[in-house]
């Protein structure tokens, strides 16, 4: 028996598409697969569907838990479920693993039919618009003409924004949370240090580590440690760790001495144990390339001129990875076009990660916005 508010036991399903998909990079996949989960019931009009887009390390398992592993909650389980802000009693919610991912959708660990070997580093660099095209095929699969809403945080929010630009007739609302209209030089710099950590790991083998029966865990661990710093806020780190030391600290050596070191190493080890290094490279590259204004001469308002969705844009005060000012760029471009948009700046100590946290006010805002979406 599932606890109240939980969608309960769930399972991932897959769908194979045999119509070719051509990426921005110029490569065509003749056949490809997406894995997804769904929660709630698609209504007869197919008008109550919500697409959840994941961020860098996310996947299709968004809510509930596998029947055989009740502890493995979906990454946004606090947001999605019966009576929750994204209410599965009203909406049919779809979580999907993006192409290039490592949770079952076609990606670097998939066998490349041309070589009979895993794609590895040869998997094409995927972009946010590529993902939108693939997600649209998934909508076709369900017979969904238009999503009631496309929702995402961080890189997921960028996909929601891209949807409204690329396929305006197929999305009625976009919830763009803790996102930015494009990365800054500083954002790209952090991503490249992470990539260099992976690529220079001797176990990386130019991205073909699968055939060597090894994994570049050291590089991936460093990449995650660095990334994790950018997800937290200085205030939160000060409060949670400060200069607290581990037992035995003060030995004038390089073992773990401060709690923050212990925490980051733990997070790095945990992540490196299961995530695919090639997927990490692809996801960071999709972030770097994201710039929907670029085809419009850098004018974001021009990029959004043809959009017909209504928007909720949310930022968090201590998010320095994608700060509130970056969300305001999106809002300003929407208002310039006289689009329907609400913008809420949530006071939170949790930095970029705040979009995943169970914050009463944040959830009340999302719930209020979702409640006004007709199905």
């Amino acid at each position: 028996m599932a606890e109240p508010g939980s969608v309960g036991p769930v399972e991932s399903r897959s769908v194979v598409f045999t119509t070719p998909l051509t990426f921005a990079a110029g490569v065509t996949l003749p056949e490809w697969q997406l894995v997804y989960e769904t929660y709630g019931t698609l209504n007869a009009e197919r008008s109550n569907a919500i697409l959840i887009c994941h961020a860098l390390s996310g996947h299709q398992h968004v809510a509930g838990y596998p029947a055989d592993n009740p502890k493995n909650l979906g990454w946004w389980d606090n947001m999605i479920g019966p009576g929750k802000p994204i209410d599965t009693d009203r909406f049919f919610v779809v979580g999907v693993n993006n192409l290039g991912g490592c949770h079952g959708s076609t990606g670097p660990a998939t066998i490349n039919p041309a070589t009979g070997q895993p794609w590895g580093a040869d998997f094409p660099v995927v972009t946010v618009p590529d993902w939108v095209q693939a997600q649209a095929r998934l909508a076709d699969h369900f017979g969904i003409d238009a999503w009631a809403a496309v929702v995402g945080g961080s890189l997921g929010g960028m996909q929601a924004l891209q949807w409204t630009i690329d396929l305006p007739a197929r999305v009625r609302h976009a919830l763009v949370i803790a996102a930015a209209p494009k990365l800054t030089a500083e954002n790209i710099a952090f991503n490249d240090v992470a990539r260099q950590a992976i690529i220079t790991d001797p176990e990386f083998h130019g991205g073909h580590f699968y055939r060597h029966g090894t994994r570049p865990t050291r590089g991936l661990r460093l990449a995650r440690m660095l990334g994790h710093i950018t997800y937290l806020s200085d205030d939160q780190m000060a409060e949670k760790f400060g200069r607290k030391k581990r037992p035995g600290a003060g030995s004038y050596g390089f073992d773990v001495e401060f709690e923050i070191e212990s925490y980051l190493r733990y997070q790095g080890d945990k992540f490196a144990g299961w995530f695919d290094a090639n997927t990490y490279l692809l996801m960071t590259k999709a972030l770097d390339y994201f710039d929907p204004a670029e085809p419009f001469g850098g004018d974001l308002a021009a990029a959004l001129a043809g959009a017909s969705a209504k928007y909720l844009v949310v930022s968090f005060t201590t998010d320095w990875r994608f700060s509130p000012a970056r969300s305001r760029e999106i809002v300003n471009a929407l208002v310039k076009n006289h689009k329907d948009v609400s913008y809420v700046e949530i006071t939170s100590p949790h930095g970029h990660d705040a979009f995943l946290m169970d914050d009463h006010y944040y959830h009340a805002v999302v719930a209020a916005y979702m409640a006004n979406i007709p199905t």
Partner: protein
Amino acid sequence: MTHALHTLRRPDFDVIAGWMKADESVLDLGCGEGELLQLLAGRGLRGWGVERDPGRVLAAVENGINVIQSDLEAGLAGFEDDAFDHVVLSRTLQTMRHTQQILAEMLRVGREAVVSFPNFAYWKNRMAVLNGRMPVSEDLPYQWYDTPNVRFFTMLDFESLCAGMGVVIRDRQVLDERGECVTEEHNFLGSLAVYRIGRGG
């Protein structure tokens, strides 16, 4: 009689709505829970609100209006020149420190602007001060120690500021404490003043 109650609470809304037409765009500064924008949406206008208070922002989202959380004291830097037909600042000017800046900003982003504020020279307010106490009234409903108001000014003061800034007064409606229109001795009998202003020259 919901409408009568509503009008009694915010009599300036009817005046403001009367100066606007369907299909026009409006930016409501300090929009609260979005009551004015709901009224205007019902009349076919397209509106956006700016509000700082988190509780009011949430209520505005619940009310289904476009609300942008922002602090007016920081200006309207995110909004383009001439972005709106109207910019409204109702009963908020007296709570702001950067008086001239916000007036200039309103007339930058809006073709014209509407400002309403409590008239400190209303006769009951004058009486209160003559009797040695700070005024508390329908339109100045706070004690001196808990008021959000930081600027105390009269209609004459406001009109003189407009003249000094080269701001043109295009229309004016003055209301008493019951929300009735005042037709004479405005600066004496008026409790709430509503101005429609534009750029000079």
